[in-house]
């Protein structure tokens, strides 16, 4: 009897495994909509946009298929040198702030430097349509969107952009007014982060470098997106410059000893871009006689400390530096990662909970 039960158990187990195999083989493989430039008719190229615009996934960084598809799309977009291009946005369902910003920056660059004329097939998602309209991407794509942004998760996006020379800080007033509305604070540490980042774009990000033979954007050459949603402030600043890895040696061109010392400090970090980012952070912290220079990165990082808690990240080409402080009383934790895909520029982002500031302002 016992033997029979054992036989039955083994049969059941085999049966369920067999059923599983059958199910697997009959299930169609998940196919991803690959972005490709399609030629249709008379010189009309169509590039299909991915469903998700995402630079970095919280869980898998850049290993997820969504991120790969986005960068594959971006790479094809960057390769366009002239003429007309239609972007098929029908399938776009989600646009994360930094990825949307990078997309906007690349569109601006292609229009300014190569005279590319964009057209687009409108997204089917109403939310995406509203995001495009709110961020001004619809104008770059020559896309006519009739609906006015009304969704709570869209209407709080604010944008600012400007040229390398002739930066006008008053461009940032709508963003700061939004923060004041939520927090009641006229002065906020994030202003320092934004203005320093823009200063970095103006002074360092577009320096002449022997490796860089391509043309770089003049106006706009920096872009800022801000979103205040559910008590969280997200600010992202982007440039399409030479990256920290190339800019840092130029900034420290008169201080070879210091550069060498910094690079020695970060020698165990993987990836040259990640090493350069970490070196830039260390430079900000280092006590040199030249306090006034190179502190942009430190200040970008210090926004979190001044605020008390939040996240900061810096992506420069293939390097990524993250800093997290979970409460005012705990020390911040930083991490450096080598990424799979290059952003071809620098992105600095802050994520700050606003409730705390709000409570303080009530006191």
């Amino acid at each position, binding site marked *: 009897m016992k033997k029979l039960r054992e036989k039955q158990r083994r049969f059941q187990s085999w049966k369920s495994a067999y059923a599983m195999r059958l199910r697997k083989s009959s299930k169609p493989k998940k196919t991803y909509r690959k972005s490709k430039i399609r030629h249709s008719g008379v010189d009309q190229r169509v590039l299909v946009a991915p469903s998700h615009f995402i630079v970095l996934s919280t869980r898998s960084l850049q290993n997820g298929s969504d991120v790969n598809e986005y960068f594959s799309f971006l790479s094809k977009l960057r390769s366009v040198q002239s003429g007309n291009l239609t972007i098929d946005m029908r399938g776009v369902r989600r646009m994360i702030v930094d990825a949307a910003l990078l997309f906007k920056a690349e569109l601006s660059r292609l229009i300014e430097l190569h005279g590319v004329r964009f057209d687009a097939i409108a997204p089917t998602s109403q939310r995406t349509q509203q995001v495009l309209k709110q961020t001004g991407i619809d104008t770059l794509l020559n896309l006519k969107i009739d609906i006015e942004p009304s969704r709570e998760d869209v209407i709080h996006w604010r944008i600012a952009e*400007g040229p390398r*020379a*002739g*930066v*006008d*800080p*008053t461009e*940032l*007033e709508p963003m*700061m007014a939004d923060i004041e509305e939520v927090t009641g604070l*006229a*002065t*906020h*540490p*994030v*202003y*320092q982060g934004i*203005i*320093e980042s*823009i*200063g970095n774009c*103006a*002074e360092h990000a577009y320096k002449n470098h022997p490796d860089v033979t391509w043309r770089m954007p003049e106006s706009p050459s920096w872009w800022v997106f801000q979103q205040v949603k559910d008590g969280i402030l997200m600010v992202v600043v982007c440039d399409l410059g030479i990256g920290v890895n190339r800019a840092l040696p130029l900034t420290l061109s008169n201080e070879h000893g210091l550069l060498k010392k910094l690079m020695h400090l970060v020698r165990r970090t993987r990836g040259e871009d990640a090493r350069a980012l970490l070196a830039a952070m260390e430079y900000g912290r280092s006590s040199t*006689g*030249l*306090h*006034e220079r190179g*502190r*942009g990165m430190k*200040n970008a990082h210090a926004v979190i400390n*001044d605020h008390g808690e939040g996240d900061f990240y810096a992506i420069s080409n293939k390097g990524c530096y993250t800093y997290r402080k979970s409460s005012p009383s705990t020390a911040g934790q930083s991490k450096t990662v080598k990424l799979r895909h290059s952003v071809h520029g620098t992105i600095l982002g802050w994520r700050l909970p606003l409730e705390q500031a709000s409570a303080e302002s009530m006191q």
Partner: protein
Amino acid sequence: MTKVETVVVNVAKQFTKLPGLRYIRLGRFSGEEFRQKFLLEPLKQGKTIIVELDGVRGYGSSFLEEAFGGTVRELDLDITDALNRIKIVTSVESWRLDVEEYIRTAKSRKNATNA
């Protein structure tokens, strides 16, 4: 004993609520512009300046360094004299400390540059 004349400068009211970058060539409301408009002349005349920093959206460090450190460099002021004659009034302690640091280290930059 002659009384030293004092000039009060309120950044937010007299200059801007949105201070900009380091140099005039980089854009509006720069540290260099602030220095030229409000700091150099009174200090040249031997006056003391009280600078009220509050009321703005924030400051980039390059703005503060160029305004105050730049003043020390341009007028070749003695550090103690500069710290005595440039008074910072603000509720944000880190701004005051930063400005004082920029005044103290302004000379070392000049020395390093001259070296």
